[in-house]
């Protein structure tokens, strides 16, 4: 009781000094920084995105590992350091669902699904390619094995993202607090559908549906990039509009007048 009293008496001044949204801004900033790192590591440093071809023979695969040797090892090491940042973005998105008029079950479902997602969605690939690049003198057959393992686990892991998007969509569509616009709910559905379109990557080694195919990768990447850009922007707006109440979120001040 003693400490309780001290904790409630003096801190009024302390609270007044703090930006009440600083935790949210920290999470949002971490989210942005993570996606920047993600883009740099996967697209520039390791050259794993856009992905190399699944149709290559083991000689070409070994050549690819040689060409990108240090890029892979350094790039993924960076990912191993920063992957924990995803928890911030998942927490922020789960928080957005707690702000809605829906059951907390939605937020927790999303949180658990996306906590799971980092391992099959990214880390398995990083581990497998690191192992593949570790010993260039390994049997080419085995290097090809790590190559398949890496890209298929990365691109072919869909369930967590599919169900995660659908959970978020459902929460947005039935929410009465206007946390997100409804069209973003439908955009979640578009993203979920692209997760389905990826699945033939497990079957085809060439063509548009292979893991580097124009439909299974390029088109889906465009959709995913739009989706990610949109939700980063909307989360920012959410934080700006946040009033820490339980009712509908107020509009942004200048746009409120209609």
């Amino acid at each position, binding site marked *: 009781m003693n400490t309780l009293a001290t904790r409630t008496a003096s801190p009024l001044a302390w609270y007044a000094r703090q930006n009440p949204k600083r935790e949210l801004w920290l999470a949002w900033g971490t989210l942005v920084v993570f996606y920047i790192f993600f883009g740099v590591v996967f697209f520039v440093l390791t050259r794993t995105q856009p992905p190399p071809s699944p149709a290559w023979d083991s000689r070409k695969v070994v050549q690819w590992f040689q060409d990108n040797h240090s890029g892979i090892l350094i790039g993924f090491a960076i990912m191993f350091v920063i992957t924990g940042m995803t928890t911030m973005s998942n927490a922020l998105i789960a928080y957005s669902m707690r702000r809605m008029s829906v059951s907390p079950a939605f937020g927790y479902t999303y949180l658990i699904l996306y906590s799971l997602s980092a391992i099959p969605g990214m880390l398995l690939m990083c581990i497998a390619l690191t192992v593949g690049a570790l010993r260039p003198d390994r049997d080419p057959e085995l290097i090809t094995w790590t190559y398949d393992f890496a890209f298929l686990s990365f691109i072919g892991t869909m369930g967590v993202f599919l169900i995660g998007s659908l959970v978020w969509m459902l929460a947005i569509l039935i929410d009465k607090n206007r946390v997100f*616009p*409804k*069209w973003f*709910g*439908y*955009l979640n*559905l*578009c993203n979920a*559908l*692209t997760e*389905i*379109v990826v699945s*033939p990557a497990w*079957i*085809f080694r060439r*063509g*548009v*549906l292979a893991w580097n195919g*124009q*439909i299974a990768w390029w*088109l889906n990447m465009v*959709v995913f990039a739009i989706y990610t850009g949109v939700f980063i922007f909307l989360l920012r707006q959410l934080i700006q509009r946040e009033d820490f109440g339980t009712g509908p979120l107020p509009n942004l001040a200048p746009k409120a007048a*209609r």
Partner: protein
Amino acid sequence: MTDHSVAQVTKPGKFVPGQPDMWAFVLFETLVFTGYFGFYLFYRTQSPELFLRAQAQLDLRIGVFNTLVLLLSSWSVARCVQSARAGAYRQAHTDAVLTTLFGLVFMVSKVFEWFRQIRIGNGFASNDFFTYYYFLTGIHFIHLLIGFIALGVIFYQLRRPAPRSRGSQELVETCATYWHTVDFLWVLIFALLYVVR
């Protein structure tokens, strides 16, 4: 965005059917499908013989039948919207039942066609044409299944007690808009898979 449409409805004549948000989905998803179609047409021209030979194994009559059925379902859901708007909820309910039935007929005949093709020996990975065939019809099929959920929402809204809100009618229109999207995407898929040479 949602109250935006309500504001516009008050002006007689001009209104966005359903949530404008659904229209954003329709336009975006149409773009994605345009991408699928573009790749299909491009790769078709790269090996025209193969595509023509494989395409000859499709039965155009089934395709036409499917199209007519889905157009019928679109017609009945459009009637449903207009009836609901006019307050004729019993009529609207009948139309929604009709839509569901037509949707089911389409679904069954689609599955029947898939089974027929598989029996002939044309699987997903058999050749490029059938890859596109199963991919496009399959992804459309998933849209159709989601469409049944949309129809469920329509039924739910039509069953609500008498003084129905504007929001209720808006949801009916939103779901109908989705259903029409399933329809017009099929119109394109049908033309591209069955008739294009």
